[in-house]
């Protein structure tokens, strides 16, 4: 029966000791420890949440980036295409312009040549006429009396003269 009869001494000291331990530990141990654990758990939770949102944001950002890149690529392609077209157009235009210019120059040159030729021909005619007149004068040996009539004959003969 001794074994199962609580002794008053141990009951008293256990009560005192246990109460003291409970109150001291609540004040100096459990409050800071549990507070810190809770705080840390909260910060970990917050960090995880932040990581999750950041991940989502990154994903959105990546999608945006891809879109932007695709758009840029498209734009580049159109730009290139346009440039190519422009180049071709420019080349074609240049070709057309060049041939036109060439034709113009050719025409002008032809014209000039023609003019020169005509002029030369005219001069030649005059020279030839004068020469032939001189020769004829020499040949005949006498100067025509009627200067006016002879001039008329000369000009008529020049006009009737067709080289070629």
């Amino acid at each position, binding site marked *: *029966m*001794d*074994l*199962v*009869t*609580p*002794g*008053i*001494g*141990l*009951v*008293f*000291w*256990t*009560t005192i*000791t*246990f109460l*003291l*331990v*409970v109150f*001291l*530990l*609540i004040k*100096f*141990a*459990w*409050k*800071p*420890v*549990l507070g*810190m*654990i809770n*705080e*840390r758990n909260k*910060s970990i939770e917050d960090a995880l949440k932040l990581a999750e949102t950041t991940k989502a944001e990154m994903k959105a950002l990546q999608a945006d980036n891809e879109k932007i890149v695709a758009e840029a690529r498209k734009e580049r392609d159109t730009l290139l295409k346009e440039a190519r077209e422009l180049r071709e157009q420019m080349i074609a235009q240049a070709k057309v312009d060049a041939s036109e210019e060439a034709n113009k120059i050719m025409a002008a040159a032809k014209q000039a040549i023609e003019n020169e030729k005509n002029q030369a021909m005219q001069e030649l005619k005059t020279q030839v006429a004068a020469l032939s007149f001189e020769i004829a004068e020499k040949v005949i040996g006498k100067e025509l009396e009627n200067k006016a009539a002879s001039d008329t004959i000369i000009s008529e003969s020049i006009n009737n003269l067709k080289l070629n």
Partner: protein
Amino acid sequence: MFFKPTKRKLLAFCAALLFSCISFAQESDSAKAESGFDINSTIFGHIGDNHDWHMFDITNEDGTEHAVGFPLPVILVNTNPFSIDCFMSSEFEHGHKTVTKGDHTYKMVAKAMGGQDIVYVDENGNATENGPLDFSITKNVFTLFLVAIIMLVLFISLARAYKRRPGQAPKGLQAWLEPVILFIKEDVVEPNLGKHTDKYLPYLLTVFFFIWITNMMGLIPFFPGSANVSGNIAFTFVLAVFTLIITNVSGNKEYWKDIFAMPGLPWPLLPIMAVVEVIGIFTKPFALMIRLFANITAGHIIVLSLTSLIFIFGTLAIAPVSVFFVMFMDVLELFVAALQAYIFTMLSALFIGLAMPEGHEQH
């Protein structure tokens, strides 16, 4: 629950060993005469409380035995008239001498089931049946103080570690204790108390570590340990009373209604059920008290019995067997030390939780 089969087996084992121990004790009267070894008083001397801390005996050259240990303070309270006497237990010289302080003469007499009583001595020099109230710092009280100091040092340095490294991963002492604290919080207290967890967690954590450390101190076979504190009914009684008080103080309207006016019960049954429920208030902590006491005491008795085998057989040849079985039991007791602390904490949380039912649908 997982511990039930193990516990039942353990209890059966304890019971078997207790019976064999008792039969040993009966035989020991004859054994005592032959070998001079009284197993009954040895075991119960270790199980019970002591007024001094006996460590070991040395045999002097002249063949007399001499005990080595240290005395503990004796604090005696006389009720009529009120007075307090304090002196060291060494003054009793292990019960051989009486001590006279003021009007009273005290004598320390050995109890049948271990430990000692301090009684008055009458004018004729004979020990009486009556004694003063004994508030001595006994071996158990001394161990209790040691446990309190260990706990304060351990957990206040733990708190300091948390303050030193706020918001960082646990390290060192924290890494050892935090999983245990979180286990108690998340797996023991929260399932039973829910939103009330924070209010009762400090008490339950203290109970858990107090019982656990005390249990383990009891397993150390030499100086700072060896006292059977958590196997003492006074210790378990106090803890059970705390749980009883907390349970009933935090009991809400529903709890008291369920006790005195169980809803849905035909009225002629109400008085009977009220009596049963009121008894139930006390049986729950009573079970807590007996469970812890019986488990720890049984463990100590088994270990002591196994060690005593060497002296009963009187041969060293049995020592390897004893050592092997004691080692096995010590490992088991190490588990039981944590298990019983866990059960006490869990059931305390459960009882407190049951005192705060929310709504009728919980029944």
